[in-house]
């Protein structure tokens, strides 16, 4: 029983030096720092347009206090997006397939939203634990359910990202193995499998972008309740 399918998720090392930091810093090379010029190059224009689009969308439902979070949410979004998309290239390593990294991103940010809410407006934050209009006998059960749902949010955020990306990468590897193995035996089936591979790759590109967006969107939602 060989487990070579999971080798792609092992942290890359060169002579014992962990290179995950370089894998995480690589997106910075692809995103040039905006200059003070009015008309820059095509890459900077595209980047600026995209960041404006997503930041406006994210910041619309938040009040003035929430706008302080614009920088961290936008940079988190760009980081996750770039890391996910770069992971789709052959032989690359995707840091977001590691649960440790996603939990490290999700847990502190969720905790920050929770503590902000509990500190500045404790009544309103605790009030979110009981939806409006619930029948009176249900109140104790509902409080317990809502508390559990609140406490499970960081776990859900981290595991959602990890599971989606890991599953996608594994599927790509399995189906491509099937395609290559079938090529000498049944070429027609192999072509069908390669079609599935093409569709799967398109799905993976979409998933990479959506997962980054969902992560940040949910964080902004948690922020909305608490700020």
């Amino acid at each position, binding site marked *: 029983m*060989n487990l*070579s399918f999971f*080798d792609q998720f*092992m942290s*890359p*090392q*060169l002579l014992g030096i962990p*290179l995950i930091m370089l894998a995480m810093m*690589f997106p910075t*090379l*692809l995103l*040039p720092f905006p200059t003070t010029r009015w008309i*820059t*190059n*095509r*890459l900077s224009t595209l980047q600026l347009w995209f960041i404006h689009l997503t930041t406006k969308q994210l910041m619309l439902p938040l009040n003035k206090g929430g706008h302080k979070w614009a920088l961290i949410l936008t940079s988190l979004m760009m980081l996750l997006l770039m890391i996910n998309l*770069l992971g789709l*290239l*052959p*032989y*690359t*390593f995707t840091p977001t397939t590691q649960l440790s990294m996603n939990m490290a991103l999700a847990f502190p940010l969720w905790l920050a939203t929770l503590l902000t809410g509990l500190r500045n407006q404790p009544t309103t934050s605790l009030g979110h634990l009981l939806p409006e209009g619930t029948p009176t006998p249900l109140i104790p059960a509902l409080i317990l359910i809502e508390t559990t749902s609140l406490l499970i949010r960081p776990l859900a955020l981290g595991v959602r990202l990890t599971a989606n990306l890991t599953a996608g990468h594994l599927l790509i590897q399995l189906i491509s*193995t099937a395609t290559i*193995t079938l090529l000498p035996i049944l070429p027609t089936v192999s072509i069908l499998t390669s079609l599935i591979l093409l569709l799967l790759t398109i799905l993976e590109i979409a998933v990479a972008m959506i997962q980054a967006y969902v992560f940040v969107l949910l964080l902004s939602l948690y922020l909305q309740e608490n700020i």
Partner: protein
Amino acid sequence: MKLMDVKLGQLPTWLAMRDFTPGGILGALRRGYDRYYNKYINVKKGGLGGISMVLAGYVVVSYIWSYSHLKHDRHRKYH
């Protein structure tokens, strides 16, 4: 003096003259980045080639990093 102007016999001398402190290495990386950026990306009609070269280089570097793992798969019968 630039590397292209150094004669082959003067190579060790030239290497000794270089600045290998962390600040020097950072400066060299910054200069290399600026040269690439201004030649291929910071132009009026930059195309796909600018970032494609960087991504292709990244794929090659990732292959080299994971080669010690991949070489076991070459002669394996069942993957």
